[in-house]
């Protein structure tokens, strides 16, 4: 074999090895299963429905994903640190109702937004203190605050629907840059900030350590209680923001808003590679998980699938994605 031929063969071999390493790395990603699933769903629905890939439909998927995405990103902080927050289902409607009431009184949208987000932060603070300081189990603590905040939403609204009297109050659902609703831009901003924090800051890396091994983190001198409390505060704020986003779409808020967001947000994080034992997950995976759920819901609606089967399909997809991830783990271990 000539030198040139040998060089070409070597470079091809190197390229193949590089491709295999890339493929292995991609498949090793914790959200590879969900990514494959998302791609498969997109391909299937695009082939089955001529409207699926239309711009208006994509915007609907993104718009619907924005609210749950914002909540799920906040949930990511908590899951990565080894906990989970069920109170988002109560915090979201409470913040939406508070926001609407203050805005309707003419106090201005910005003050209303600040107060509503502060409510979310306060709920998160209570969760964080109960879990980190008092040692409450996250399930029990956040289940309790979910009931309290959900009930408070009804108390504040007196059981009625709070109509956003001024359309400007629902600015988060309006389209200010191109045809893309503002809530999608908010999701992008929140996702980017979260990515930076989790990947490039000491705080973010500490959360993975905390979730991976609480005791080792404590022994290493990390301020575990402060870290643990702060993630619940973040989750509370994002839950409040998510509730305001949904209410902005509806131009109304009531106590039944976002009633299924606790489980949906946790499902999205798990789909995105998170682990309920902590130490894993990330915003990229969470966003992919949210998109997978949104694509599934939208696609089934376009195909006129009965709502009974839609529920079954959503559960099945969740199990499939987690199963694919589990297979990946086993293959990696092998």
């Amino acid at each position, binding site marked *: 074999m000539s030198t040139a031929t040998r060089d070409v063969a070597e470079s091809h071999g190197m390229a193949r090895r590089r491709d295999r390493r890339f493929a292995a790395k991609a498949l090793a990603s914790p959200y590879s299963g969900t990514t494959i699933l998302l791609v498969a769903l997109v391909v299937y629905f695009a082939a089955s429905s001529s409207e699926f890939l239309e711009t208006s439909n994509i915007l609907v998927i993104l718009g*619907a994903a924005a609210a749950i995405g914002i909540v799920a990103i906040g949930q990511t902080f908590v899951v990565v640190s080894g906990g989970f927050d069920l109170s988002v289902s109560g915090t979201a409607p409470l913040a939406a109702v508070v926001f609407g009431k203050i805005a309707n009184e003419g106090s201005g949208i910005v003050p209303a937004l600040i107060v509503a987000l502060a409510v979310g932060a306060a709920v998160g603070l209570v969760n964080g203190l109960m879990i980190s300081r008092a040692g409450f189990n996250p399930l029990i603590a956040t289940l309790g605050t979910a009931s309290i905040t959900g009930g408070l939403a009804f108390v504040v609204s007196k059981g009625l629907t709070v109509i956003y009297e001024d359309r400007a109050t629902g600015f988060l659902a309006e389209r200010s840059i191109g045809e893309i609703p503002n809530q999608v831009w908010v999701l992008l901003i929140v996702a980017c900030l979260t990515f930076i924090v989790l990947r490039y800051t000491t705080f973010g890396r500490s959360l993975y350590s905390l979730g991976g091994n609480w005791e080792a983190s404590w022994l290493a001198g990390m301020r575990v209680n402060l870290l643990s409390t702060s993630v619940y505060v973040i989750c509370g704020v994002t839950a409040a923001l998510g509730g305001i986003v949904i209410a902005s779409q509806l131009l109304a808020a009531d106590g*039944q808003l976002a009633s299924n967001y606790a489980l949906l947000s946790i499902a999205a994080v798990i789909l995105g590679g998170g682990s309920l034992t902590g130490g894993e997950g990330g915003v990229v995976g969470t966003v992919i998980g949210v998109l997978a759920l949104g694509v599934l*819901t939208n696609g089934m609606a376009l195909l006129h699938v009965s709502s009974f089967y839609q529920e079954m399909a959503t559960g099945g997809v969740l199990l499939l994605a987690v199963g694919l991830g589990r297979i990946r783990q086993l293959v990696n271990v092998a």
Partner: protein
Amino acid sequence: MGSRSGVTKARLLFGVLFACVLAVAIAACGSSGSDSSSTASESTTAAGTGSGSETETSSDSGSGEGKAMLEGAKVAFANYTDAAPVYLELKKGVEAAAQETGVDLSTYDNKGEAQQTLQNAQLMANSNPDMIMDLNPVAGTTQSAENIFERESIPCIAVNVPGSGYCPWIDLSNQALGTEMAKVVAKEADAKGWKAEDIEVILVQSAGLGPAVNSSIGFYYEELSKLIPGLPKVDSFKSIGPETTTIGDSVVQVNGEALRQPSFEAVQNALQGIPADKHLIVYSISDESSLGAYTAVQRAGRQDDLLITGLAGSEEGLEQLRNNPAWVAEGDVFFSHWGEYLMAMAAAMMEGQETPDMTAAPIATETKKLTIKGTGIVPISTYYKPNSVQPYRLPPLQPEEEAVTSAGESGTVGNQYLEKTGVLQLFGNVTGLEK
């Protein structure tokens, strides 16, 4: 050096104290509020006097003694849920009616859950009232609740959702509402020059609530398809069930769960499959659902090519009827006044009157201005003063006659028999029974 697992006594004590303080604070806030019943009962004490607890029956049906029998009678009322505005209005109306008639009322909240409903059924039975009124949220649970009442031999009224027959049933007539709203929509579509081939119908059901609630959709579409030639026909209203998602190429049914957000999301998704040049006709089983659907259409920029109706007669629904050009009819069920009819029905039962298969609750199909003689289709001004959300008058009583009940079965439907009790005359707002 400590360990996480070893929670110190101090932390545990702090946690318990914190939880106790929080609970007390919440309870203190709750007790100062009003209309916040959960599982606990609230008593609305009778203003009048009377023997109360013993149920007196009269061999003369319609003797008018029922009104007297109500004074001091113990009545337990379980609401569908206190969390939804329309049902909250219903509960307030029952409480007001109890005050007016001298009834000793206890209220319960079924919270829209089967388990809570059955728990409340047992609690109500245990309190040994003279009458139980149960608004059951889940189709199928009524039988179990009725079994409890029957075992304890307590008279009862099934509100909105029928049982097996032990509890006489009061409900709005889905057949009347559905067909009348279809008549209005068909007239409006004709006035706009809409043809069937250019129309897409979106039906927004609540699959989990069962046929007693969703049958209005079947009645509506069956009538609409007759009135707009070219729309896909159905064999009967029963052809449209919870699993129906499409009828031909121009009708879709989605599940809005009778709530605003799910209806918004369902219709938003459905709109993506409907060409932009189609006229839209939207029908749903509640105002909340219609409002969510309307917002979705509005967000899609298609509200100018829409005919939509509401069902409930809520404050928002009435406002939409008055101010929204696309909102052409409101199926008013006068929920806040059902209490009067419930008390009258209780009095009739105490008198020994025989009740029809379905006692008709008051309903009307209100329009902006349209009247269709021989139906309940009337302008909103028939029952409401301008800008008011409280009716100053209720529809006239209906004679009992053979019709299709809201469960889709044939039977006697009407409410004329309530006149004989004299209870409705106390309130003086039913057309023909004014003071």
